[in-house]
């Protein structure tokens, strides 16, 4: 246990990996407009330059290529975009997301607009990986899991645990940027379409 440590004496590990829940929650504090408190933080190394990955993510219309349960993201203006997410039973749920912080090549943060059925916010950071291995991409996602139907939507979007979905989405981002495609075992187009739904 870290009880004997004075403030500031913690180790160098990311807060998202802390054993103590209150320290994990601090991982969310860097978000300007934190919405909700279920945190999911993951880092993946992508063998591409920082700016290229930032550019891909900043064009939010790219996100459905790598985020499994996004149907579409359309830019409303330079800061706002409309996110459409698959819902159970074949429907969709949507909200407006606003970019709250934008540091080219380094960081993008976003939050849902007031009134969203599922308040959520997130941040993605890009850092040069040591040893010329490309870029460390870290995603932190917060959301307020509601009950009922919308809760099911969120459960589907983030699957059972947000960390799992974030990890899988980051892997798809890595695959798309490193290989130009997303790995699938589908034997033909029909199987592929089935897997997408």
């Amino acid at each position, binding site marked *: 246990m870290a009880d004997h440590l004075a403030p500031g004496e913690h180790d160098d590990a990311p807060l998202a990996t802390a054993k103590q829940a209150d320290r994990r929650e601090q991982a969310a504090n860097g978000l300007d407009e934190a919405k909700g408190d279920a945190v999911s933080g993951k880092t993946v190394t992508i063998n591409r330059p920082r700016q290229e990955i930032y550019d891909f993510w900043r064009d939010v219309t790219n996100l459905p290529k790598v985020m499994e349960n996004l149907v579409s993201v359309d830019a409303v203006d330079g800061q706002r975009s409309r996110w459409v997410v698959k819902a159970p039973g074949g429907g969709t749920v949507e909200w407006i997301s606003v970019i709250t912080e934008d540091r080219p090549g380094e960081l993008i943060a976003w939050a849902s607009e007031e009134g969203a059925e599922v308040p959520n916010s997130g941040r993605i950071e890009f850092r040069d990986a040591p040893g010329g291995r490309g870029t460390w991409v870290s995603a932190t996602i917060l959301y307020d899991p509601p009950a009922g139907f919308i809760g099911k939507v969120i459960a589907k979007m983030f699957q059972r645990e947000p960390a799992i979905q974030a990890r899988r989405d980051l892997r798809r981002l890595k695959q798309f940027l490193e290989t*130009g495609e*997303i*790995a699938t075992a589908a*034997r*033909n*187009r029909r199987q592929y379409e089935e897997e997408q739904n």
Partner: protein
Amino acid sequence: MRALTWHGKHDVRVETVDDPEIVNPRDAIIKITSTAICGSDLHLYDAYIPTLQKGDILGHEFMGEVVDIGPGSTLKKGQRVVVPFTISCGSCFHCSKHQYSACDNGLPADNQDIAQPIYGQPMAGLFGYSHMTGGYAGGQAEYVRVPFSDVGPIVIPDGVDDDKVLFLSDILPTGWMAAENAEIEPGDTVAVWGCGPVGLFAVQSAFLMGAERVIAIDHFPRRLELAKRFGAETINYEESRTYEALMEMTGGIGPDACIDAVGLEAHGFFADNVWDQIKVSTFMGTDRAHSIRQAIIACRKGGRVSMPAVYGGFVDKFPLGAFMEKGLTLKTGQTHVQHYMPGLLNAIMEDKVDTTFLISHRMPLEQAAEGYKMFHDQQNEVTKIVLKPGMDQAPAA
């Protein structure tokens, strides 16, 4: 198309299934001309491998003709290719270091979650070997979809027989890498546990790399005979005590390098619970891990241990003390097939490596289920079965 599909323990069937198609840009579709049954396929047949689903198409040693390509493929229709059993992207950090079996991107994102808790990081995808390795359809079929076809398949020159090059897909590079990992020096004595296909290719490779003596260990007389044909001395562990024999045959020094090629038939990815099930329920018992223990005990001080044998889970009573005290080096890993294919194709073309000796049976794809049963029941006589989808239905050659 017709394909060999898995339905349960000792239940594989040749059935009509949907044809494969180009799905991703770098894909190619291969019309299979030759496809082998691997020893590791028998573990699927015996239903020891978790995450296998009814209807899965098996097979990871195959070759054929390119019949369709995606816009990102570098292959051309009509080319003959051998396909590596590992599905690797060619563009991640590990592929750039030629550690192809450690590819970050070969597995679909969701499947990576199966292996990650066991191994720490996900590995490359494999053809026809359960959903833990990606759920990719295998090559014991008329056609197969090959992802990353610009990186994996190697083009075979016209006029070279399938049987000479088919084993570039898995067992020849695996035997070669096993010998390379043994870091053989001139004058060395190399001991090889297991004279299955990989062990036999390791014997050949060890001599090519400068070993003065190779000692092959098995209990199937026919397999020991094959090892002897390549110049190896033999120990039949049912007739002789292996450790004592090795010590006497090396003047009390022990072999300079030891290759454990026993577990290799299990290209396995067993979780420990499955592992335990295997230990209690099969003839293998703890013998599987016995070969690596024995290799460590027999190896000379400061020697090298190479382990192409696949261990997927955990092992008891690992002789860590002997390993440390003697200062041994252990090298292992799934084969980086793509790295070895070009050099080994040259070695075959120059007749430095003999591959066709291994094939004991050739039969049409339609008889694949029969082939599995034969291979399973007659390990001494059947060293390798090659299925030929285009072959007339006739008695096995």
